[in-house]
């Protein structure tokens, strides 16, 4: 029968209070009371409520009438009256309590009819007025609450006994909004009475906002309003007085609604949507509102104004307000920053999910009610400027209008309409139970059971309602796709002709609002991608609506879409590509983000589309170790016959790995140090492979072993393990003849190998070249390309210039013979970390050289404040400061004997050689400059030396380094601040320290 506690029900059914209802016994089954009870949401609750109501009726004497008798008569037989009363008692314990306190109100339930807004207003207002004028038994506050609740009983009765709850929803929501308006009107009557005479000098109107304004109120919700006041006289001089009185009226009105009395409270009246929010004056004149909205208002405020409607007070004043304000609402889309605001608001909605409750939220979070309402409103703002049919304050009406106008696909609108109605109905039922403001799905079994039964699930209601909710929520979660992007695709693909389609003009508006700079071009790409009947076109038609959203999230959606089109053109027919995009959830998303975020990655991918497979591979983004890379490269070399083919194979491996690192960087899976390490490993492996190929070739041509061993020493950022995407590889070549081989022969062979290495790396190819720079070798450009170890020893013994010692600080073997590497390090260690530190003379020399470089090395026209490497407070500044400390103290402090800048800087700090604050400052500036330099390459696709001078670049780079959208202009501020502080530190630690 649906009772959770049958025994208790039996007892209750026998309760004397129900005498006359339950017998004669033959009525009990069949169409009797228990049967009727079994239909309601919570039979136990309904039965208990009924017993309490009957008891209360028995005890209370109302106007001398025989209420109990009449009620029994009404309940004895099946029919509307019985259904309604039991439905209300079974759905809401709060309304049941109200009936027990006011048993006479049972007629409000059984005889409920639909009422117009005017009827409700008259009803509530007259109840309150009566309490004021006749100084009746109840104060006006109570009268307001009782009248409100009795109306609420009627609304609930009709709602709960409707054929289908979801169809009834708009009517219920509108009735609730009407009732709220009536209550506000009555509260205003109270307020005028409280304020007294002065109130007559003030015209006062209450503008409903939010759900109240949109005629779609919940059972329990804050009622959002804005207050307007004007002097009655129309005399400007009286304005201040009218505002003062208006503020008193507004305060009294809010108190009348929200104060808790013996009869409870209605709801809080929330005036926070007013100009300047909580800080603004409570009441303004029409002119003052207008001025604010013209000058100061933000886009979201216009969005809120979409729903404005006069709900109480002076109708003429309300109309004047709306006439003044509504034109502004529809111009909001042409305001500055509308596009940015829209994107920001969209992000905010998506991010606005309270963590703990997200799983049970009906209102917030992706796919919640707020999301539907918000998205519909945005489309109204974008398209409502030119299309008057879209200007409705009610979500469902607006959705229908959007669908009729072709702005949203018809079936998508239908799905959203269904989901919205269901979610709202659930929300209503949950709120109705205790008349509490909540938007959470209950978790307790009895609550779920009641909720399930309330929406018509009689078998396993708890599980059924959760299942139904989750299914709808899944549909809504794709709301952005449905509302924003799908219509564009339908329009582009020119598919079904039966359906109203987004006009080209509207499509352009939409694309522009989403951040596409060249909407016409984007439309062309969409057409090309979705044209035809191929499998590819079909898959892309389903994919692109979602992907467009991801493109739109990034700084350069246009480039992303174009790159996608190019990759798709070259890979579109390969089976695995389409399968990957379609089946592997995150692959398409990652691809879209990467393409629209980084030209470097997009270029790599366009040249080597097959690398895209990495994106689909879950573990595919972990950079590979130097050994693993070398193994792959070596295997590839072995398979090839000629040196050039072998090098091409190595470069393919490098290209793929570069893409992997770039994607890992862009998706935030690698930090700066990780990227530097991965790139250094990759460069080392590539150099080793080139060395192997060259050696093989020279040996083949000589017809015998080389007779000498080679070593590649990394210098600069390569030696330091701090290489970036755009860095050249600074190197020196060392060799040592095998025993018994003539030095001259060995030198000749080694030179041949080095020449071949340079040739191999220099061959033009589709990948970013690995440029090697051997200029740091002894004697610089004029010196021999490769020397023997003994040659280095002799050279350093005789010449050893200070700048060479400094350069050697960052020397580290990266490829070639390991033993030779150790020997080379043994050779240079005493030079770079000289016992007792470098001389005072050398210190002065280094400082002077640096000072001279600052003025001479900077490229013509470059700004010293923004150059990453050579600018003030840039990379060189920090590196030279560290290196000076290393040259002076490396011999005595272990930690300084490293090639890494940050490690040495930290060691200098620990040893007290640089003040901790300066270490911190310099490390920050150095890391930020490195990060920006890498990000610039990722964004522009080529090396960049200074802060971008173009806004769009700044935005793109800013996003790559994790700043929010639209904060690009501040990037320069942040960099220059860090650099300025670092420069101060450099001045004291490099130039001024003793």
């Amino acid at each position, binding site marked *: 029968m649906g009772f959770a506690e049958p025994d208790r029900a039996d007892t209750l059914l026998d309760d004397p209070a129900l005498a006359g209802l339950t017998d004669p016994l033959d009525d009990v089954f069949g169409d009797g009371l228990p049967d009727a009870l079994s239909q309601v949401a919570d039979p136990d609750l309904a039965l208990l409520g009924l017993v309490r109501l009957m008891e209360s009726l028995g005890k209370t004497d109302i106007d001398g009438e025989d209420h109990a008798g009449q009620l029994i008569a009404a309940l004895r037989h099946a029919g509307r009256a019985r259904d309604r009363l039991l439905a209300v008692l079974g759905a809401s314990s709060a309304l049941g309590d109200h009936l027990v306190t006011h048993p006479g109100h049972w007629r409000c339930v059984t005889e409920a009819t639909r009422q117009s807004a005017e009827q409700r207003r008259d009803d509530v207002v007259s109840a309150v007025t009566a309490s004021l004028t006749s100084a009746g038994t109840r104060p006006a506050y109570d009268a307001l609450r009782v009248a409100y609740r009795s109306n609420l009983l009627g609304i609930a009765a009709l709602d709960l006994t409707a054929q289908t709850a979801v169809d009834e929803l708009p009517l219920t929501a509108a009735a609730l909004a009407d009732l709220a308006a009536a209550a506000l009107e009555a509260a205003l009557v109270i307020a005028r009475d409280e304020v007294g005479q002065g109130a007559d000098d003030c015209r006062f109107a209450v503008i409903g906002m939010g759900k109240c304004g949109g005629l779609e109120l919940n059972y329990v919700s804050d009622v959002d309003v804005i207050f307007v006041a004007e002097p009655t006289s129309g005399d400007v001089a009286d304005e201040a007085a009218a505002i003062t009185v208006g503020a008193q009226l507004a305060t009294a009105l809010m108190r009348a609604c929200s104060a808790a009395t013996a009869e409870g409270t209605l709801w809080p009246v929330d005036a926070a949507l007013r100009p300047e929010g909580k800080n603004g004056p409570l009441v303004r004149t029409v002119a003052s509102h207008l001025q604010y909205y013209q*000058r100061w208002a933000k886009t979201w405020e216009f969005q809120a104004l979409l729903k404005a409607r006069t709900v109480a007070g002076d109708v003429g004043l309300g109309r004047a307000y709306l006439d003044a304000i509504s034109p502004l609402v529809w*111009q909001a889309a042409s305001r500055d920053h509308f596009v940015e605001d829209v994107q920001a608001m969209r992000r905010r909605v998506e991010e606005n999910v309270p963590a703990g409750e997200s799983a049970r939220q009906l209102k917030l979070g992706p796919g919640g009610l707020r999301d539907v309402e918000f998205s519909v409103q945005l489309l109204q703002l974008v398209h409502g400027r030119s299309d008057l049919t879209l200007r409705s304050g009610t979500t469902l009406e607006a959705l229908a209008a959007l669908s009729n106008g072709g702005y949203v696909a018809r079936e998508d609108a239908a799905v959203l309409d269904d989901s919205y109605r269901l979610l709202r109905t659930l929300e209503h039922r949950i709120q109705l139970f205790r008349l509490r403001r909540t938007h959470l799905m209950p978790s307790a079994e009895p609550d779920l059971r009641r909720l399930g039964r309330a929406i018509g699930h009689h078998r396993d209601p708890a599980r059924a309602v959760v299942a139904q909710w989750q299914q709808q929520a899944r549909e809504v979660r794709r709301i952005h796709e449905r509302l924003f992007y799908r219509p564009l695709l339908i329009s582009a693909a020119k598919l079904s002709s039966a359906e109203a389609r987004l006009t080209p003009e509207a499509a352009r508006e939409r694309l522009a609002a989403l951040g596409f700079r060249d909407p016409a071009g984007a439309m062309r790409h969409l057409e090309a991608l979705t044209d035809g009947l191929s499998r590819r076109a079909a898959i892309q038609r389903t994919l692109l609506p979602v992907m467009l959203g991801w493109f739109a999230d990034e700084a350069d959606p246009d480039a992303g879409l174009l790159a996608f089109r190019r990759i798709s053109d070259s890979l579109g027919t390969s089976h695995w590509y389409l399968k990957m995009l379609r089946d592997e959830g995150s692959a398409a998303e990652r691809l879209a983000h990467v393409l629209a975020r980084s030209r470097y990655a997009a270029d790599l991918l366009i040249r080597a589309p097959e690398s895209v497979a990495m994106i689909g591979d879950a573990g595919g983004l972990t950079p590979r170790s130097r050994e693993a890379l070398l193994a792959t490269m070596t295997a590839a070399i072995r398979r090839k016959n000629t040196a050039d083919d072998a090098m091409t194979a190595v470069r393919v491996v490098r290209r793929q790995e570069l893409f992997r690192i770039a994607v890992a960087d862009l998706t935030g899976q690698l930090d700066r140090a990780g990227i530097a390490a991965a790139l250094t490993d990759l460069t080392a492996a590539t150099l080793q492979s080139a060395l192997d190929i060259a050696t093989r070739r020279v040996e083949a041509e000589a017809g015998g072993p080389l007779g000498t061993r080679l070593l590649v020493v990394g210098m600069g950022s390569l030696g330091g393990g701090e290489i970036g995407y755009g860095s050249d590889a600074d190197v020196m070549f060392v060799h040592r003849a095998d025993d018994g081989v003539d030095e001259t022969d060995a030198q000749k062979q080694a030179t041949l190998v080095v020449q071949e290495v340079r040739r191999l790396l220099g061959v033009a190819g589709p990948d970013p070249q690995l440029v090697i720079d051997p200029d740091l070798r002894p004697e610089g450009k004029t010196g021999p390309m490769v020397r023997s170890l003994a040659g280095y020893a002799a050279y350093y013994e005789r010449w050893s210039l200070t700048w060479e010692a400094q350069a050697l600080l960052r020397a580290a073997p990266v490829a070639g013979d390991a033993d030779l590497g150790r020997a080379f390090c043994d050779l240079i260690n005493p030079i770079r970390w000289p016992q007792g530190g470098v001389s005072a003379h050398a210190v002065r020399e280094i400082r002077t050289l640096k000072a001279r470089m600052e003025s001479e090395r900077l490229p013509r026209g470059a700004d010293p404040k923004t150059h990453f490497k050579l600018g003030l407070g840039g990379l060189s500044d920090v590196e030279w400061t560290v290196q000076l400390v290393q040259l002076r103290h490396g011999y005595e402090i272990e930690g300084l004997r490293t090639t890494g800048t940050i490690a040495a800087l930290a060691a200098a700090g620990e040893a007290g050689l640089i003040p901790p604050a300066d270490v911190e400052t310099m490390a920050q500036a150095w890391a930020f400059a490195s990060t920006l330099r890498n990000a610039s390459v990722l964004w522009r696709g080529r090396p960049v030396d200074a802060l971008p001078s*173009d*806004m769009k670049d700044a935005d793109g780079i800013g996003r790559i380094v994790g700043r929010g959208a639209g904060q690009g202009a501040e990037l*320069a501020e942040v960099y*220059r601040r860090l650099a*300025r*502080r670092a420069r101060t530190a450099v001045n004291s630690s490099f130039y001024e320290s003793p």
Partner: protein
Amino acid sequence: MDRQQEFVLRTIEERDIRFVRLWFTDVLGQLKSVAIAPAELEGAFAEGIGFDGSAIEGFARVYEADMLVKPDPGTFQVLPWRGENPGTARMFGDIVLPDGSPSFADSRYVLKRALAKAADLGFTFYTHPEVEFFLFEQPMRPGESPTPVDQAGYFDHVPHGMGHDFRRAAIAMLESMGISVEFSHHEMAPGQNEIDLRYADGLSTADNIMTFRTVIKEVALEQGVFASFMPKPFSDHPGSGMHTHLSLFEGDRNAFHEAGAPYQLSQVGRQFIAGLLHHGAEISAITNQWVNSYKRLWGGGEAPAHVCWGHNNRSAMVRVPMYKPNKGQSTRVEVRSLDSACNPYLAFAVMLAAGLKGIEEGYELPDEAEDDVWTLTDAERLAMGIEPLPSTLINAVTLMERSDLVAETLGEHVFDFFLRNKRAEWADYKGQVTPFELERYLPRL
């Protein structure tokens, strides 16, 4: 197109305006103007008018794009001194980049950022400047000592005085441009006048000061005299300051007021003053930005050369004016170091930032200075912890260079330009052989 823009366009048609000047301010506080025909105005509202910023002080490009000046329709005024028909009107403009984002080189944006920061803390910033200036006889030759129009003194009424007519004409013109004048009188020095503007929010006041300086110069020309805001034109007379009253409001409540507290000054008010004092030396380069400014500051009399505060102490840098009973809303602090030749946008921004810093960090307000600071001995000042303000422009610049507060308030771009420009100004000045030297050394040495 919003209502205000429509109003502007309609007025232009009705009043037969043939030229619209878009006003903006370079980093040194010089008013710049670009005139456009009314037909271009609609485009200017939508996108701004492009110009090459590289030739304007401090506008060297931050981003390699043309700069745009975008009129603020709320500042539209018909210029009264250009004759009625055909007329000329002006609007202040914001400097923006082609993507609509504000330019970091724009002084107005510097102030807007500072005001936004105050707003984040819940404050609105109001200012009330008392602008002093000199009137000289024409012709005025640069390099020669000027002749003041009269020999009167403080509050003197000069019968048939030139200054009298001048002030009346100037005030009429200011009022006709929507700038309310509170007070005007003859100042201490010969030919020196003071006009006080009514208090308004920081941005409006700064705009008003820019307008004010132009109006005063225009009226002077009309009357055949010359007006100057130079801080210290005469060695032996007081210079022209711009004492500025500052207050913060929380909603419609004066945040400086607390009934019953000493001088009715709230905790917030005391911390604000503490901030002004704490950072007083490092913001001097902005509030007193010329070589000549420091001759006024160190010229004695009522000019404040020391970092201290007092109640009705006219030698203190910050003065808390006499409290009028039941006027809680008017509680305010007066900064007396500022001079009339500053860039009001930047000066307001750094003063606000210094005060807010005091509030944020909860600085302790030092004891007030009750004596005339000039009469104290060095040792007394040392004992009381009263530090001097910078004595020259270069001292001020050196102090500012180390200030994160100023850098953050101005933005790195303006900060950097300003320092470079002022170092150059100092270098030029230092290189001069002055009349003083010629007079004193040439005969003797």
